[in-house]
């Protein structure tokens, strides 16, 4: 605990970068050093300090930057406050990495100590400190972002340029102006000459100079998204009007629409390609559906019990099963989702995860820089990037705006949503941005509260959802076919009814499947459903059984009211926000157990739910679900659930006879 001299942070900005690749002796061409820039009043001396992120932080001596990053409050540390090991690890990680976020939502502790740094990492050689009185000039340059080149009076080695990839250069200069006189050089208007008169004098100059330099500062390009986020008023109530029938109507038969959809979703044709021939199955007796109970969410304690001293997760099957049965308490999500989504390997140590995050942070910002540094001229010649950006800007403004994390006009959550989606375009330019992706990202960002982590978790989720968004929407077609197959097994009468209403290909489930019920459930319920799904329990494609569970609850109404094509679509669309997730999960699990215990399961169903495949044998069903016989009818299933070519002689298309 160092009792250092008193110093006050006057300005602080994170996400300032040094590009060592412009340095001639660099070996790491790709390395970007990110760090925070501060102006510190140290016993009356004004110091500019740049510190790369790797610096160790002593949490016992922290100052916390206020929201505007220029007001600083003392961080009062209560002993034992953060004694919990888990929170502590999270804390140190947050401390290191939250700094590079363009915005953060919590108090950000930062080291204010000098000279006590443990320069173990190579990067720390980029740390720099100088007194404002040593400054000769600051040159302001622009390359899609602003960077500043500081020159000292006693020219030793040149200082590396400071790149403000996340803005803040204007604020930095403004803060500096409180202590130094910045005047445009007669030779170069982009060069500001620095002189440091006494304080009183500088104060008196302040107003005068503000005007002078405003023009220059004003030229700084604002981040493009800022302009688009404005101009929207508060959310008003929005209610769908109920569909009211009139006494007598003639309605155009929607068969044509249905026929066309049938062509678009060539359901059975795909099955036919894979499964020539027919397997005629008479109505299958599924037996009664077991009643299952949901459990309490996994608590912090419970999670910690599944962690060894190095931070590896242990007894993972049990842990996953507990998550499947009850979800996670909210406090646990930020950490647990990283494992569930595969961003963190379950068997990694805490140290390994920190290293992983470091390299992933570099990778993220490298990609972010790619679109951030595209000039307007370049973008004019890049229609795909332009289209992606335009759509992202529009959709960010229309995603979860009633959630406190994204509400209001200048909410930083919106900027993060935008930046992550733009960076994802650079990560996967072929896919780019497709509508629906903002819905998938929003809950992840809400939980992560961190740009980099949210990005990589989103990448993992998109790996699962990718096919839904591809040009041919193959993922959607496959899922609709699979769902149809399951529904025929579970409830042939209902499926026949749907078919009679030209709805047998289940188009009305499109939104459910495209974005995994994101629009159907309340935000909190989406979080619950997704974490349950990500356990990959209790079978493959559990989300399809979730569909079946919801349809099971609606079929009576649909059939009794004799809904047609349009009414079914409308009825399903209007279920949005009226569903109870725990009830649905209970029913879906019951359906799973019911199908699992069925002895004469059609082969196609076993394939869809993974009952045949060997990979599902790793399912940690050690507790809870009763051991179910795995009906194995065919041995010719690959691990990916697809049939092998040579199996065609005995595989077949399933036909149901009621």
């Amino acid at each position: 605990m160092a009792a250092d001299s008193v110093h006050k942070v006057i300005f602080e900005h994170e996400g300032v970068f040094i590009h060592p690749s412009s340095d001639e002796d660099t070996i790491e061409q790709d390395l970007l050093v990110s760090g925070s820039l501060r102006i510190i009043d140290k016993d009356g001396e004004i110091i500019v300090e740049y510190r790369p992120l790797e610096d160790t932080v002593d949490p016992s001596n922290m100052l916390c930057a206020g929201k505007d990053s220029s007001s600083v409050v003392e961080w009062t540390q209560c002993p034992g406050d953060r004694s919990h090991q888990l929170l502590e690890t999270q804390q140190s990680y947050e401390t290191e990495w939250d700094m590079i976020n363009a915005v953060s939502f919590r108090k950000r502790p930062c080291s204010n100590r000098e000279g006590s740094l443990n320069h173990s990492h190579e990067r720390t050689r980029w740390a720099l400190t100088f007194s404002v009185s040593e400054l000769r000039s600051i040159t302001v340059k622009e390359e899609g972002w602003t960077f500043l080149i500081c020159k000292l009076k006693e020219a030793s080695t040149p200082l590396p340029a400071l790149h403000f990839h996340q803005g803040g250069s204007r604020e930095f200069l403004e803060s500096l102006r409180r202590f130094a006189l910045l005047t445009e050089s007669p030779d170069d208007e982009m060069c500001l000459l620095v002189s440091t008169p006494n304080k009183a004098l500088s104060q008196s100059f302040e107003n005068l100079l503000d005007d002078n330099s405003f023009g220059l500062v004003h030229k700084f390009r604002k981040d493009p998204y800022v302009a688009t986020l404005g101009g929207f008023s508060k959310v008003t109530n929005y209610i769908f009007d109920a569909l009211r029938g009139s006494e007598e109507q003639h309605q155009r038969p929607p068969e044509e629409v249905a026929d066309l959809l049938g062509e678009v979703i060539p359901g059975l044709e795909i099955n036919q390609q894979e499964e020539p021939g027919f397997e005629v199955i008479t109505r299958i007796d599924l037996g009664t559906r077991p009643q299952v109970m949901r459990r309490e969410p996994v608590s912090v304690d419970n999670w910690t019990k599944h962690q060894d001293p190095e931070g590896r997760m242990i007894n993972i099957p049990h842990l996953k099963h507990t998550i499947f049965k009850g979800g996670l308490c909210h406090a646990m999500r930020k950490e647990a989702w990283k494992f569930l989504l595969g961003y963190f390997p379950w068997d990694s140590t805490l140290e390994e995860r920190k290293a992983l995050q470091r390299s992933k942070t570099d990778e993220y910002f490298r990609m972010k820089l790619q679109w951030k540094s595209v000039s307007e001229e370049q973008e004019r010649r890049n229609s795909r990037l332009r289209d992606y950006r335009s759509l992202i800007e529009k959709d960010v403004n229309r995603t979860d705006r009633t959630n406190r994390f994204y509400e209001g006009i200048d909410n930083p959550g919106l900027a993060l949503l935008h930046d992550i989606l733009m960076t994802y375009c650079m990560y996967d330019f072929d896919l780019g941005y497709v509508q629906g992706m903002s819905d998938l990202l929003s809950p992840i960002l809400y939980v992560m509260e961190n740009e980099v982590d949210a990005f990589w978790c989103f990448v993992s989720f998109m790996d699962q959802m990718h096919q839904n968004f591809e040009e041919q929407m193959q993922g959607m077609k496959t899922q609709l076919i699979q769902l149809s197959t399951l529904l025929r097994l579970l409830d042939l009468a209902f499926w026949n009814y749907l078919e009679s209403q030209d709805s047998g290909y289940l188009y009305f489930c499109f939104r459910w499947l495209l974005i995994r019920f994101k629009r159907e459930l309340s935000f909190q319920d989406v979080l619950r459903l997704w974490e349950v799904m990500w356990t990959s329990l209790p079978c493959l494609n559990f989300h399809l059984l979730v569909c079946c569970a919801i349809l099971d609850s609606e079929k009576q109404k649909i059939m009794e009211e004799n809904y047609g094509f349009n009414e079914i679509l409308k009825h399903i669309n209007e279920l949005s926000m009226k569903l109870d997730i725990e009830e649905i999960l209970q029913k879906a699990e019951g359906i799973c157990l019911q199908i699992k215990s069925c002895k004469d399961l059609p082969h196609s169903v076993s394939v869809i739910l993974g009952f045949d495949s060997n990979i599902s044998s790793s399912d940690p069903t050690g507790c809870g679900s009763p051991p179910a016989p795995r009906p194995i009818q065919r041995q010719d299933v690959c691990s990916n659930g697809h049939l092998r070519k040579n199996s065609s002689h005995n595989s077949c298309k399933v036909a149901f006879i009621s």
Partner: protein
Amino acid sequence: MTTKTSLLKVILLGDGGVGKSSIMNRYVTNKFDAHLFHTIGVEFLNKDLEVDGHQVTLQIWDTAGQERFRSLRTPFYRGSDCCLLTFSVDDNQSFFNLGNWKKEFIYYADVKEPEKFPFVVLGNKVDVTERQVSTEEAQRWCQENGDYPYYETSAKDATNVAVAFEEAVRRVLAMDERTDHLIPTDTVKLHRKPRSAVPCCS
């Protein structure tokens, strides 16, 4: 029952973000939400109205505008009585794309006589100050492309929204008088179960 109600299907087409859903919701529920979700898939709302003594139920279809979703959007074009081509006056690109939307509609709706089909063009978001498309430009396009009625609308402040839908209905009714459209001409497929003519729903 003395009055006969016709069900007219109108479809809103246009680029993502021009305000298709907002126009529909303003018209049907008289509400506006600037932060309404972008549409995924296909939705529709019904609205009863009377135009020139005719009882009409408008079935307004709203689709996702992104190119990627074309194959799942276009089947719903069938059976449309009117198409509302929508752009946003603060978005040049959405105006340039009107022609593509028209083409897509005519192709997939399988319109028999495209030159006679009632299109109505909506320039939405007239409440915004920074316009990129002038009224004259838009009117010229409408004239050159088939003399379509053009309305500058604002779903936000309700400008011209109801007027535009009523005009759409008038156009359809005028067509119907020429072609005796009120008698269903679609061939009924015999293997299909005839559906109830009375839509229900809460």
